[in-house]
């Protein structure tokens, strides 16, 4: 077995011999030698396309050049990565792409973080040889979340592959052929009118400025500059471990306290935390789960189980389109962002003596789908638009850079109170498995009165980047109230990326879902890999951000949502009880059936 696995192939790359495992691509073999071959259509998250032809190399004896991303090494291969033929062809390919691309770099949202621009810079394509072919396409701004500008598209199909492979959504597809070939939607409809979950994985995988988030930076500046407005900002759990990348830090750095200071410097009047409402979600959702379990197990009533989390708006829109007969499985809890909005415009506004009409709620999210979520008609529990603007991590990065703030020199700051205090359980919402772990920490304790039996409260089986994770927790020694749960094996599953969500839902649809509780996040890795996160996002970067989140959890004073003093306070003071009247009014929502196409 091991011999088979270790079969080595000997090749020479630019004259240097190297032995690599079978099925290694030329691209990866070269990497081992420290030879960097440029790529465009290649992305490690996605299947091999081999269509941009930037990574071509010369293989001795071959009539044509070979795409190194798509060609496995074979014994004795003599590879040249920088021969005259390779350089000429590569320059031609880059020039061709530039001739087709609207080279409006200075006005482009991706200026400075564009793979085509970087390549043009590397190959010094100063003077275009070829004729300008770019078309003045209309920019599709129909969606509140994602903007599509075909004139900047280089047809690498990374978006199509992300949408199809990672997400099983296929909102984007390739249409027409030859000179007319382009990336479009079903029937060329505008993005707002197709089955698109707004997850933004297309944006996160786009090498150029063809797909970007809808940018609301100027609107937020306007609000900040308006003296009549009290501007509240909330920060999602996954922001504090990724915003550093936008301001020049290495991936995986926790910068929560600098982030708070930066937001204050930008001029936000109240700097609050979505982690607080993440904790609140756990209380509401945990109680909802117990409520459903009680009905199902004790009262033998017909109630939808498994219950599925509802924090991820990309996931919500997906299930509304694709599995609309199973909406009753969704927790009725709003996402932390949308729990925050109405609380800010009712409870918090009253506390600080601001007329809700003069309050602007801005949220900083790792997500493009949150822009859509905030605009949903259901999200006006306060009587006003609960959340006014949603910015991605990238947009906040832009604001910080525009304001000339040197992140490395910022003093540490703390969130304002109330709606600012959180626990480690809230923090881990930002990574796949986090909501599950946070919920289990609280639910187990509610049922048994004891801490969950995992060392240091770390529920390791629900962590990691495996597509679908499963865990079973045997409930023993229950409190009197939950005696009917004694000996029950609580089965849970966690899926991230909508392709994995689809697998879980197909199982549920067939009536064979063995679970009680399922966590689903639309994006691979959860929010740390969200469509609004810094570009690039790769598995290595996902792991770094994820480790930083668990680190944040570990350093927290409180690790369980129900121990958050502000949570205890808001129930005493305002909400009264979980799933109570006020909660239903402000913190729970309904879902809508949507068309499948």
């Amino acid at each position: 077995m091991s011999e088979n696995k270790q079969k080595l192939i000997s090749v020479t790359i630019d004259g240097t011999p190297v032995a690599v495992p079978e099925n290694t691509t030329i691209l990866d073999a070269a990497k081992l030698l420290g030879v960097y071959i440029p790529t465009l259509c290649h992305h490690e998250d996605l299947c091999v396309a081999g269509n941009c032809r930037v990574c071509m190399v010369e293989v001795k004896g071959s009539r044509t050049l070979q795409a190194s991303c798509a060609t496995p090494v074979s014994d004795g291969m003599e590879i040249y990565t920088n021969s005259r033929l390779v350089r000429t062809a590569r320059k031609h390919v880059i020039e061709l792409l530039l001739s087709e691309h609207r080279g409006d770099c200075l006005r482009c949202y991706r200026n400075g973080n564009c793979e085509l621009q970087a390549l043009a810079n590397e190959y010094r394509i100063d003077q275009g040889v070829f004729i300008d072919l770019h078309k003045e396409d209309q920019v599709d701004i129909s969606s509140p979340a994602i903007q599509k500008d075909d004139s900047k598209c280089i047809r690498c199909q990374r978006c199509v592959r992300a949408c199809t492979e990672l997400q099983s959504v296929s909102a984007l597809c390739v249409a027409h052929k030859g000179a007319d070939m382009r990336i479009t939607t079903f029937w060329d409809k505008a993005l707002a009118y197709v089955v698109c979950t707004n997850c933004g994985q297309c944006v996160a995988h786009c090498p150029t400025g063809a797909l970007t988030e809808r940018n609301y930076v100027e609107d937020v500046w306007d609000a900040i500059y308006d003296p009549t407005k009290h501007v509240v900002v909330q920060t999602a759990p996954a922001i504090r471990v990724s915003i550093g990348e936008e301001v020049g830090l290495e991936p995986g750095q926790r910068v929560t306290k600098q982030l708070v200071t930066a937001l204050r410097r930008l001029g936000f009047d109240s700097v609050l935390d979505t982690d607080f409402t993440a904790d609140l979600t756990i209380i509401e959702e945990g109680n909802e789960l117990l409520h459903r379990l009680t009905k199902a197990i004790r009262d033998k009533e017909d109630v939808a189980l498994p219950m599925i989390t509802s924090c991820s708006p990309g996931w919500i829109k997906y299930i509304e389109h694709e599995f609309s007969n199973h909406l009753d499985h969704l927790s009725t809890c709003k996402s932390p962002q949308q729990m925050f909005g109405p609380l800010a415009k009712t409870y918090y506004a009253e506390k600080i003596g601001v007329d809700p009409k003069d309050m602007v709620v801005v949220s900083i999210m790792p997500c493009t789908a949150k822009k859509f979520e905030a605009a949903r008609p259901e999200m006006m529990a306060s009587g006003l638009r609960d959340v006014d603007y949603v910015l991605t991590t990238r947009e906040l990065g832009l604001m910080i850079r525009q304001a000339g703030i040197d992140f490395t020199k910022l003093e540490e700051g703390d969130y304002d109170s109330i709606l600012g205090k959180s626990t480690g359980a809230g923090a881990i919402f930002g990574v796949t498995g986090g909501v599950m772990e946070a919920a289990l920490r609280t639910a187990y304790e509610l049922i048994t009165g004891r801490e969950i039996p995992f060392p240091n409260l770390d529920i390791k089986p629900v962590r990691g980047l495996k597509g679908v994770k499963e865990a079973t927790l045997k409930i023993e020694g229950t409190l009197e109230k939950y005696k009917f749960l004694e000996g029950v094996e609580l089965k849970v599953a966690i899926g991230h990326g909508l392709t994995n969500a689809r697998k879980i839902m197909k199982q549920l649809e067939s009536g064979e879902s063995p679970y009680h509780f399922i966590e689903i996040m639309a994006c691979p890795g959860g929010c740390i890999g969200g469509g609004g996160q810094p570009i690039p996002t790769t598995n290595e970067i996902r792991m770094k951000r994820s480790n930083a989140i668990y680190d944040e959890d570990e350093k927290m004073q409180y690790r369980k949502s129900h121990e958050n003093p502000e949570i205890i306070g808001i129930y005493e003071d305002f909400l009264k009880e979980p799933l109570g009247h006020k909660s239903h009014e402000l913190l729970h929502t309904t879902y809508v059936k949507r068309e499948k196409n």
Partner: protein
Amino acid sequence: MVMTREEKLARINAHQERVNLIFEKIDTQGLMEKVMKLENNKILEYIKESGLKGRGGAGFPTYLKWKLAADQKSDMKYVICNADEGEPGTFKDRKILEEQADKVFTGMAICAKVIGASEGYVYLRGEYNYLVPLLTTRMNAFNEEMNQLGLNFTLKLRSGSGAYICGEETALIESMEGYRGEARNKPPFPVEKGYLGKPTVINNVETLVYCTMIVMNEGGKFKTFGTEISTGSKVFSVSGDADVEGIYELELGMTIQEFVDLFGDGDTKAVQVGGASGFCVPRKKFKETIIGFEGVPTGGSMMLFNSTRSMYHILMNYMEFMQEESCGQCTPCRVGCQQLVKGIQAIKHKKRPATYLDDLVKLAKTMRVASKCGLGQSVANPFISIVENFREEIIY
């Protein structure tokens, strides 16, 4: 050597009758009975010794293709007949299918027996859908015959939708699987991973008929024709400024001059061999150019042009065709074709200097080595051969 049309026809017909492999009426059922008793190795030996190369244009040795597929271990294998005859100027597969469907099917069945395939597909060009009723009838009868013979092999028909790229074998497979017609990365080649990921032999209509005839003649006759490198004969589709047009089976290895003498109108200035993806041979090279793999290979399209024709328009026509028929996935082909079209227009209209033509030739050379599939790689064939031989016509 000036001949009247009648003299030309007489010569051509004599040549045809001497060769007469493709359109010869044979007892395919009787042949299949014989084939069932033949060792697979014997069949492979016949094909190998015949020197038969693929008649679709690329010229891959048929023996090798079959052998590679035969050597694969797999629960399923497929034989596909590529009847997506889309090359401008070829129309011979249509006649072969119309008149000799059984010989095509027999070639597929022989291949299936050799490689161990149990299913076969005829991928028919969308524009040939009028053949569907005829082919379906013949196919059902053939399937019944195979069943009686005890060969576990069933034929099915698939219609294309009219994209030129689907004649490229991996794009054809994508199309058959219900996807967009786009070429795949190679390796793996279809003989390893083809239709539905299983080993697949894809042969052109004409190739399959030759296989039938080679086995029928136990390796004889076919290899007595042609040259050492280009054995056998070939069906040509003759069009353009020709005295004699149509479909003719001729030996490989004649020179263009000999060909033009037989078919031309006496004023031939250029012959486009192999269609829009083939080579243009100018009058001054007629004598030295052999029709075959040692000279100009061809899928059968022979377009003759006389001195009334503008080579600029001919080139534009081919390039516009390629610009439209590129699948659009790879950069060199999608953008390269557009640049070649726009480029020669710009030179013609004095928007770019004549020297820009040299930049375009360089680009075409890049397309030849950098494109993902045969379509983009072959755009350079007409472009360079026309531009280099008729430079002044392109510029002025």
